[in-house]
């Protein structure tokens, strides 16, 4: 055996120096397969029982199409709202000092940490007709939020906020002030500097945060169902339709819907990976 640390040793030499390659590889693969891969494969294999035509028929029922429109539409809108306000919040947290900043910074993650069922009943109660916020919106302004598609939007905004803020924050912190100094010395005003110097650096991270919030929102269940009211063709989200199918023992229907959502998730996962490597290239930082 050659000296494992010598400069000429092949890359695989580390495998010989440190123990545990076979043990950890075997354990990781078995555990991953049992918990994640086999259950995921079960969904796809179960759908194989349907012909392609049947599959299309199942997933294009009008009530389901209405749920796709709501789930994807509300999720896109919620992610867009979060992209705007999440950018402002991340900017405030990084650039400015203000009272309570540390507390705000810590609590930005609350939507991740708070169990979705708790968020769900809380939002439903807040925005119900006699709730703290419902009284203002419904009573004073005449905008009904709870038990409408707007309620779905509110829940999805809640759940998506940390994704945008936490993706942007490290990028903003690393931003070199020299770029902005150069822009200022060349006569640019703050808005021009932001628009032409800062924003282009932030764009990949902003899109990543948007995509993460969007992907999470489409699959979200617990925080949405209480405030949505679940009126057929009006405020039913797609994950709820899977539950409904299951409760009717329509396993094939539930599974076909799950395949649609899983394929969407995988596409989003690829898109997010691509966006993250774009962010890394643009900022020289790995997410």
């Amino acid at each position, binding site marked *: 055996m050659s000296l494992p640390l010598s400069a000429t040793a092949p890359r695989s030499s*580390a*495998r010989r*120096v440190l*123990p545990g*390659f076979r043990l*950890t590889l075997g354990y*990781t693969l078995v555990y*991953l397969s049992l*918990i*994640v891969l086999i259950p*995921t494969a079960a969904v796809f294999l179960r759908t194989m029982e349907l012909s392609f035509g049947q599959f299309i028929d199942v997933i294009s029922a009008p009530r389901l199409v209405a749920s796709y429109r709501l789930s994807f539409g509300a999720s896109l809108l919620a992610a867009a709202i979060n992209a705007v306000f999440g950018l*402002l919040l991340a*900017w*405030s947290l990084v*650039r*400015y*000092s*203000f009272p309570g900043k540390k507390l*705000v910074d*810590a*609590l930005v*993650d*609350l*939507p*991740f940490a708070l*169990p*979705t*069922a*708790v968020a769900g*009943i*809380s*939002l439903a*109660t*807040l925005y119900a007709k006699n*709730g*703290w*916020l419902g009284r203002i919106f419904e009573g004073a302004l005449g905008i009904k939020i709870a038990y409408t598609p707007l309620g779905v939007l*509110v829940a999805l*905004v*809640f759940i998506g906020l940390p994704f945008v803020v*936490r*993706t942007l*924050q490290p990028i903003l912190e690393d931003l070199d*002030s020299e770029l*902005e*100094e150069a822009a200022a010395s060349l006569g640019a005003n703050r808005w021009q500097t932001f628009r032409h110097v800062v924003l282009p650096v932030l764009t990949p991270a902003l899109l990543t945060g948007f995509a*993460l919030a969007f992907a999470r929102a*489409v*699959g979200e*269940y*617990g925080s949405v169902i*209480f405030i949505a009211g679940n009126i057929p063709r009006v405020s039913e989200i797609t*994950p709820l339709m899977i539950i409904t199918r*299951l409760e009717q023992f329509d*396993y094939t229907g539930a*599974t076909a819907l*799950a395949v649609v*959502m*899983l394929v969407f998730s995988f596409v989003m*996962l690829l898109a997010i990976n691509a966006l993250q490597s774009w962010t890394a290239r643009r900022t020289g930082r790995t997410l």
Partner: protein
Amino acid sequence: MTALAATALSATRFERNTATRENPLIKWSIVGISLAFFILFVLMPLFAVFGEALRRGFGPYFAAIIAPDALAALKLTLTTAVIAVPLNLVFGVAAAWLIAKFDFRGKQLLVTLIDLPFSVSPVIVGLMFVLLFGANGWFGHWLAAHNVKIIFALPGMLLATIFVTFPFIARELIPLMQAQGREEEEAAVVLGANGWQVFWHVTLPNIKWGVVYGVILANARAMGEFGAVSVVSGKLRGQTTTLPLQVEILYNEYNFAAAFAVASLLALLALVTLAVKTWIEHRADAAYDTSELGMEAPAALEATAPRTAPISTK
């Protein structure tokens, strides 16, 4: 110098630089809009939980918490977390060791697959296990013949919980151990340490805060999971209801005060989780700042604990 240090406490470095400073009107508009949004979407839902829970005073609040069904739900929630989190901890350490310490083909694919559970809707997670172990599932007949109950029982709820918390600890430890490299472990091996000694005395001290960080995040999700567990639980009162499911049952029975009382326990868990998370991040920042003042900044120190990592994005 003193004046500079004093302003450093109140203003960020961007506010001290004329090139990166906005006028106060713009600054306070941006801060104001951000805070209004934050209060509306984050603080109000949090306050509402405690407000509704205590609406009728402390007496009914405590009565709702020590109700037999609530206590049974608490016990089941703790049981699930106590089993699911250690299993994922062992996996997380094994996977991080594999990925950080060795080079092999398909590593990137493996990392992507470990992340997979983050992108699956909780409802679909529940469905997966119903398809495998439910009455009409692949193993349904065999399980029924041997009188084994997985769906609508603890094992199914455990599987669903393990699935949704699967990546948390691995995701914290992989970048941490990658940043620390292999030299220290290789030196220990060359000096004659065996695998377990290397792990206990060299690797573990370096990653312990990352482990704590991953464990508290995985624990919060394990105790709070709703969608996936709801599909496989069957919601038998006092038997297969965890705290989040108990919240739903009480809420759907219009027993709002009790629902929010139980929910407040989960909200407290979330707050404690965030407090510990923030504390670990500050520790890491402090360690990083000292290293900047002194000698060369070791890359590993910067990665002692992750900074502002979203709970479920990475």
